[in-house]
């Protein structure tokens, strides 16, 4: 079966800096893939390339069998590609419910239907009792949930989650992981960007892609990747040598 998302030799240069270099990977239907890597490894850049907020210097993005590399962000969203932002970006002048409704309008024109669906999604992420408050009243963990809820309201097939657990305390992180594990109930696959190798987070993923200085240095099941000496060396900041 064809993968849901395929990324071929994706590269992005900012001036002389290779933020992402020759990265390829794929995501199958129903999978949760983590992209891990230390600060500045290129995770956010990869997300921006996949979702269309940046144009690649080279490479292709194929989503549901269609080359989407030249499409605008809103067109990719329409095809079922959702995303969240590393720095949460709620519509702060709208209530929490209305934030999610904006997402739901992608597939309905009726405000009543959008409201009903947004409410269901708020229930799914555990924010239903805050529906009529403003995002400003939420903690960071709450805002991250709102970010996920708004993206889910568009009924994506795949959701790109940029640092969903960064800045959360262990309890909050655990709750977020539980929430993401339930994405399959909605038929949504996910790519999660994660800065630190957290065991809890690795529990989340079926597969892990490791980025370092913009390059993919490892890929595989989480247990194998965290033991990979190349990966450990990258996180310790040492020279990457295969035999270390």
């Amino acid at each position, binding site marked *: 079966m064809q993968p849901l998302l395929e990324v071929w030799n994706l590269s992005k240069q900012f001036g002389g800096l290779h933020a992402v270099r020759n990265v390829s990977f794929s995501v199958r239907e129903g999978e949760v893939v983590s992209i891990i890597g230390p600060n500045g490894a290129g995770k956010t850049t990869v997300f921006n390339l996949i*979702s269309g*907020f940046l144009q690649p210097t080279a490479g292709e993005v194929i989503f549901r069998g269609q080359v989407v590399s030249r499409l*605008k*962000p*809103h*067109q990719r*969203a*329409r095809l079922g590609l*959702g*995303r969240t*932002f590393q720095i949460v*970006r709620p*519509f*702060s*002048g*709208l*209530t929490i419910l*209305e934030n999610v*409704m*904006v*997402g739901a*309008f*992608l597939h*309905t*024109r009726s*405000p009543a239907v*959008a409201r009903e669906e947004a409410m269901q999604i708020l229930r799914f992420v*555990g*924010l239903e009792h*805050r529906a*009529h*408050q*403003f995002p400003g*009243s*939420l*903690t960071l*963990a*709450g805002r991250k*949930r709102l970010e996920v809820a*708004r*993206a889910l*309201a*568009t009924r994506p097939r795949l959701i790109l989650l940029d640092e969903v657990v960064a800045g959360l305390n*262990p*309890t*909050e*992180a*655990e*709750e977020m*992981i539980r929430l993401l594990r339930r994405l399959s109930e909605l038929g949504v696959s996910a790519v999660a960007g994660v800065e*630190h*190798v*957290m*065991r*809890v987070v*690795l*529990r989340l993923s079926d597969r892990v892609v490791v980025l370092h200085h913009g390059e993919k240095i490892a890929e595989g099941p989480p247990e194998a990747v*965290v033991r990979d000496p190349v990966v450990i060396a990258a996180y310790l900041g040492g020279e990457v040598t295969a035999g270390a």
Partner: protein
Amino acid sequence: MTRWREAAIPLALAAAVLAVPLVVKNPYHLNVAILVLVWTTLGAAWNIVGGYAGQLSLGHAAFFGIGAYSLALTAHYWGWSPWAGMAMAVAVSVPLAAAIGAITFRLRGPYFVLGTLALAEVLRLVVLAWRDLTYGAAGIMVPEIFPGLSRAPYYYFIALAAIAAVGTTWWMERSGFGYYLTAIREDQETAESIGVNAAWYKNLALMISAAFTALTGAFYASHLMFIEPDIVLSEPVSVQMAVVAIIGGRGTVLGPLVGALLLVLASEIFRAQFQQAHLLIYGLLLMLTILFMPGGVLGEIQHRLRLRAAPRPVIGTTFSSSHESSGQREVG
């Protein structure tokens, strides 16, 4: 059922506006009322793109002037009826708005505000310079839509236009389109990430806004019976449209009506005393609004009501702690 209840207040308000000539017979007062509604319509038109979509325009005089000159020139040269001239006003201004939007909304930064500013100024200069066609600064006579002595028909017309413009905003606020515009204003990239074609919706807002502005421009020309570039294409027109919406409340349905009432009444009251006082009044009102009511009069009121309606958070955390985590919490 709820739909009707929701519409009851707006319908009552519309009826009240339409009933004004039954009570107000004094022609001077009726003219002031017409002015209030002219500026309500203009403020509402500006509000769609400047308030809801958050795209600041300082050149709406362009659409207003196009409306005025469409009616004047088609009547003068081709003997068209004012109604046909009005249709022409809309037919010219909407594609022009679409073109300006298509160019400036793709770009990031202050291109829209600069583009609109430039458009209005260029049009003013062209109309001034092209005397063979427009009579330049000398101005041009405009036929009346409603010949006769009574001002009441003019009142009814502009009242319907104002109701249509404010009604459009009212409908918009309840539709997906309105939510999209608000989302774009709040954060365009986020809106795009959830499938909103921001450039298109901003452009649609601008086209609707331009249509109402041009219609009002044509009406105003016919109401005055005479236009010149410095009346209908001048910067004060652009600025006052924005000021009406900002003082009344950007992104509120009735803000433009409140702003128009305040501005028109204030300038009527003070005009008798000081010649150029209305400019001073705008400045003062604008300053007071920005200092004490940044959301405008209605914006401020609505904000307070909304805060009161929303229950305060009971607990500090985001979600209930009823399900404590049991898994490992190691951080690698």
